[in-house]
């Protein structure tokens, strides 16, 4: 199924969870925040939060800034 990750289309397997997606993408599970269709998914829910077709995901982390 197709979802959007940080504005780019990605093809993922049915039943993939947020945590599964992070692992697939090689993103560390700490120090990030995930927004699913505009709502934050708290890190404790990543292992259970299942994704569905056409979901829109934003994954952010800190970078240098003033």
């Amino acid at each position, binding site marked *: 199924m197709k979802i959007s990750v940080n504005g780019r289309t990605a093809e993922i397997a049915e039943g993939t969870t947020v945590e599964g997606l992070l692992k697939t993408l090689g993103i560390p599970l700490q120090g990030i925040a995930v927004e699913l269709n505009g709502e934050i998914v708290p890190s404790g829910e990543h292992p259970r939060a299942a994704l569905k077709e056409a979901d829109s995901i934003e994954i952010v982390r*800190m970078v240098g*800034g*003033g």
Partner: protein
Amino acid sequence: MEDTFKIGTRTFTSRLMVGTGKYPSDEVMVEALRESGAEVVTVAIRRVDFKKPAGSFLGRIDTSRYTLLPNTAACYTADDAVRTARLAREALSTDLVKLEVIGDERTLFPDNEALLEAAKILVREGFTVLPYTNDDPVMARKLEDIGCAAVMPLAAPIGSGLGIRNPYNIRIILESVKVPVIVDAGVGTASDAAIAMELGCDGVLMNTGIAGAKEPVRMARAMRLAVEAGRLAYRAGRIPKRLYATASSPVAGMVGE
């Protein structure tokens, strides 16, 4: 007694807060942070870069040593700023936020109306809000009234290095609010930081002034010393300015009197 100040529930000794952007390298940044003596460092929140998903940045900053202050830089609406603050809280497990709502691309001056709106929402949600604001005493008081933990008036436009353009407004802000006043943005060199502190500000926040210097590590030390010197001078109480001389040496007892 140690000269500390409080933001919300946190107590700090260093009155210099520094940004982590625009350094020539991560190594220089880490060294400059150390030389600055800062306890609070600002960071931005951005999308994960899939080309470098692991990202080295978080690992570079010793979070046991520094308090992270995420910003909402480059947000032009209250909605975007609130969204970024919530993401920062989730990513960094902190209630602190340096709230920026920008109103103009060229000057990066704040949008007062949107800033107040975003600050109200975030205060209600339990954030410790440090708003980047104009050097406007009325705005500073409004921000205090709605529950901001500090106010951070700009000295001059972000990254301009123009120094304290309106020291009189900063003084009025200091008289207008009880929360800490931290000069944010526009500091170009050590004397600018010292002036902010001599005025009685509780702290100074800067990024480009250090990161953009030819030698950021050396400038970080200069800024630390300037903030300390300015603070000491403020506490010591400067002499009044006079138009004419007052002799430093005794007038009596001159030879040939």
